[in-house]
């Protein structure tokens, strides 16, 4: 059956679709209170929509988390095994082979806390970068405030981290770190870190939606950031020991970077030999500042392009 489509004659037998009324279609729409399809909601409206979808955000995060290991024989046990194996690898390389441990008391808890807290930020940002570009099918098929995606991925990482924290508690006790009331400080530290991660994820999600190439770049950026944030060593010690040639601002700047701040806060909360003087001045203020800056800034930046996601 050949369908040769030479320019078809304009609307043959049937009457023109909308005859005289064409010019007042807009008026008709206005009279019946119809709204323009696909327009971006106002910021408060957007927040309300997002709040209405909170159950979807949590369910999507939990579903992703459980789906992750559902094919494995050991199943959900990997939630705890993966971070433990990670910590073991870093211990072997940095604690045994490279001896960065020297001078740091309670090195194993110190290292494992650093690795877990850093992994939270790292995987949140990686997932955030691909939150829109990796879920175009979802974005193109269903209506929901798109910020639900980066938020959901960060929430998934937070749930993952909570498994890791359970493993961490066991490690701490095994290495003779006594439980203390200060462990409760881990909660506000995590809330702040989550807000920071979510904000940066939303920024990266918008950039990644426009330019997916950034996903190729992120692992390198993140690795550099990791080594600059004292995950496996104490910034204090390293700067004091090898920092003779460095300008004096390097140490404080490294310590004030958000990743280092959240890692050190967690160490301070959990490990009794990690003292307050190892923290930068006004550390809670810095932590809150980063969280608010990234959280609010990232949210608004993401919302600004809401109507463009999944198009073209």
């Amino acid at each position, binding site marked *: *059956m050949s*369908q040769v*489509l030479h*320019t*078809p004659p*304009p*609307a*043959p*037998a*049937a*009457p023109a*679709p*909308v*005859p*005289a*009324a*064409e010019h*007042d*279609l*807009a008026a*008709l*729409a206005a009279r*019946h*209170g*119809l*709204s*323009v*399809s*696909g*327009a971006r909601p106002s910021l408060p409206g957007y927040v309300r929509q997002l709040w*209405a*979808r909170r*159950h*979807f955000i949590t*369910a*999507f995060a939990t*579903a*992703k988390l*459980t*789906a992750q290991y*559902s*094919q494995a024989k050991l199943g959900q046990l990997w939630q705890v095994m993966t971070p433990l194996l990670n910590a073991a690898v870093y211990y072997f390389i940095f604690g045994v082979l490279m001896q960065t441990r020297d001078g740091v008391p309670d090195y194993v808890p110190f290292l494992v806390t650093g690795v877990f807290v850093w992994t939270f930020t790292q995987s949140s940002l990686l997932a955030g970068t691909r939150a829109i570009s990796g*879920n175009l*099918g*979802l*974005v*193109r*098929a*269903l*209506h*929901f405030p798109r910020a639900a995606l980066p938020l959901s991925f960060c929430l998934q990482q937070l749930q993952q981290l909570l498994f890791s924290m359970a493993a961490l508690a066991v490690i701490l006790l095994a290495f003779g770190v006594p439980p203390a009331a200060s462990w409760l400080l881990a909660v506000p530290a995590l809330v702040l870190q989550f807000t920071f991660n979510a904000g940066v994820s939303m920024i990266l999600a918008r950039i990644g939606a426009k*330019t997916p190439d950034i996903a190729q770049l992120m692992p390198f950026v993140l690795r550099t950031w990791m080594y600059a944030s004292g995950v496996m060593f104490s910034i204090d010690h390293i700067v004091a020991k090898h920092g003779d040639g460095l300008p004096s601002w390097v140490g404080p700047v490294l310590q004030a970077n958000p990743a280092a701040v959240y890692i050190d806060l967690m160490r301070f909360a959990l490990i009794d030999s990690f003292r307050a003087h190892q923290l930068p001045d006004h550390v809670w203020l810095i932590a809150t500042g980063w969280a608010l800056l990234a959280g609010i800034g990232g949210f608004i930046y993401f919302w600004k392009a809401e*109507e*463009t996601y*999944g*198009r*073209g």
Partner: protein
Amino acid sequence: MADIAPDTARERIPTVIADGVDIVYRVNGTGAGRGSATAALNRILRRKQAEKAAGVRRVHAVRNVSFVAYRGEAIGLIGTNGSGKSTLLKAVAGLLPVERGRIYTDGQPSLLGVNAALMKDLTGERNVILGGLAMGMSREEIKARYQEIVDFSGINEKGDFITLPMRTYSSGMAARLRFSIAAAKDHDVLLIDEALATGDRKFQKRSEARIRELRKQAGTVFLVSHNNKSIRDTCDRVLWLERGELRMDGPTDEVLKEYEKFTGDGASKKPAKA
């Protein structure tokens, strides 16, 4: 159907109004410098100023389409492949930007389909909940509809399959569950893109009945299909798109008759039907 004069519009409530809609796709990576590194760099650096030079091609998918859809109507969209049917549907759903013109809608039209929100590693049970939440239903609504969804899909007719991961389902079973989840929600304006072709004949019958039901409960249904029979069974008005232009808009029988003449379909099928 075509008598859309302002006086009759007063009794009938419009749900979707398309006012001179043009839709244009921009496609990267075509033209002279296809795929080469310099062309790609050019695209990134010069984005808007020189679309053509950077090898961006414009595809004019929908041209100056206007129509008014009313509450209670089921409207079929027909046309040969690539005539812009799905594109128009996506734009009505607010998922594609229009180049010119406006689309006004009552509430949020939704495309029928939750495929993208479902995860094959999760059980059917959890997918029902996840899919429902993704469509914007509340947990209570889903709980109330859960049994209905499972029964409708017929997944449990051959054993307790709903508690197994979806990756163990046959493609037909998965398609049935997807349709059941998607059709569980009441939509103001429902857009269906060839969804009726899933499942066996028995299930197709059931889904057609469900579409009619949705139409009764809600406002307006749009159906894109190449199956003239399912258009005839479900729709009372048809829009015929050809090369992105609205060629005809009228009652199903009239438009389908012209369309079948156009495609040569009616001639070959007539003996069988009569």
